[in-house]
């Protein structure tokens, strides 16, 4: 018995079919075309959406344009309020930094002993502002110091043999509550309580003195 098998291939290549019912040569182009159609639809929808959004934008722009005059009025009111408040704040700094001398000066004669003659009372004017730092890029609009020191110097002569008591009495008086709204501290600077040597032997009994007072500082804030 001859076992040799005989294989006959009677199909041509293009006549071969897969056992699968889905044919790749049909499905792939079909899916590709469907994909392109899908992309086209997406593009179309996006384009339609642009039209819608553009219309919405135009509408909102129209509304905003209609409201602009009324809104500008509100903004102008707001700017005026801001300016008024800022100017008020700046002037309020000044108002807060006021200092009053009148009442304290009016009380002074009552506390000066009879043997004392005041020769000078001096409150120096505010010191000049320090020069601006040229390295600063943004020039400050005003002084940056918030406080300004105020001092008062009282000079006089005393002619009694109890000069030290008289001057001490005046010094103590300046520390009393009646002056406390102006004078914070009062002291005799070293070496200022001295004999009046400059005016000759006739006034040798005269003693000169100075009292330096630190007043309430002016706070611009």
């Amino acid at each position, binding site marked *: 018995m001859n076992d040799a098998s005989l294989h006959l291939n009677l199909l041509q290549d293009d006549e071969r079919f897969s056992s699968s019912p889905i044919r*790749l*040569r049909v499905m792939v*182009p079909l899916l590709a*075309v469907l*994909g*392109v159609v899908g*992309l086209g639809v997406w*593009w179309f929808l*996006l384009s339609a959406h*642009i039209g819608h*959004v*553009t219309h919405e*934008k135009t509408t*909102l722009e129209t*509304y*905003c344009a209609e*409201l*602009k005059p*009324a*809104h500008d*009025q*509100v*903004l102008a*009111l*707001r700017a*005026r*309020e*801001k300016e*008024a408040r*800022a*100017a*008020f*704040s*700046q*002037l309020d*700094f*000044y*108002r807060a*930094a*006021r*200092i009053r001398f*009148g009442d304290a*000066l*009016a009380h002074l*004669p009552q506390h000066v002993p009879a043997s004392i*003659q005041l*020769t*000078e*009372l*001096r*409150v*120096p004017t*505010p010191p000049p*502002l320090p020069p601006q730092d040229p390295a600063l890029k943004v020039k400050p*609009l005003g*002084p940056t110091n*918030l406080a300004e020191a105020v001092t*008062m110097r009282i000079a006089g002569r005393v002619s009694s043999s109890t000069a030290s008591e008289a001057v001490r009495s005046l010094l103590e008086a300046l520390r009393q509550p009646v002056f406390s709204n102006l004078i914070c501290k009062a002291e005799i600077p070293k070496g200022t309580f001295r004999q009046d040597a400059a005016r000759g032997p006739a006034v040798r009994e005269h003693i000169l003195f100075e009292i330096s007072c630190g007043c309430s500082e002016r706070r*611009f*804030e």
Partner: protein
Amino acid sequence: MKDAPFALDKLSPQVRMALGITGVALVAGVAIIVFGIKPTYQRVKTLTAEVAQLGVKHATMKTDITGTQKQRAATEAAEAALKDILDEGVIEPLLGSFSMRGKSLLDPLAEEAGFTIVNIREDRLIPLQVPNPPPQQLYARQLVELTGYGAYTQIVAFVQAAEQTFPLAVVSGLRIEHQMPTPERHKATITFEWPVKGEKRK
């Protein structure tokens, strides 16, 4: 010569057509994405952001406009407060001169107190500390120095009267010197300061 394994002429016309259609579809798809969808999508994104911004702006404008009356009241209150403090004693130059303004204000008080003013001059202008936010119109301190003669009580009465009459006038410098020939009559140099309009910011 041996043929390439995937030579087109070896493929059946149906496969060739399928490959052709697929290739054309791929090219068309890429072109649609690159030249159509991508720029359109970007445009939609931009427009949507602009619309959202406009929506917020519109809503803000409407809210602001609704509060117009409230804002008007707040503005008027702020301006009234400013006017009060300006009226309280922010001085303006008299024909360009602060010293003459000072003289016009202080002369009647000095006369009443018995203090004789012999000289008056405009001193320094010191800028005022600036709040945050700063105003457009800045204010400053104008120093006006006056020299005169009088008894201590007259000088003090004058200072008191000035401080009471002009709440914003401040004595920023004072010198009372006794005069040898006239022990009861002193020379006084008094520097008053007032708030005045300063620079205007640009």
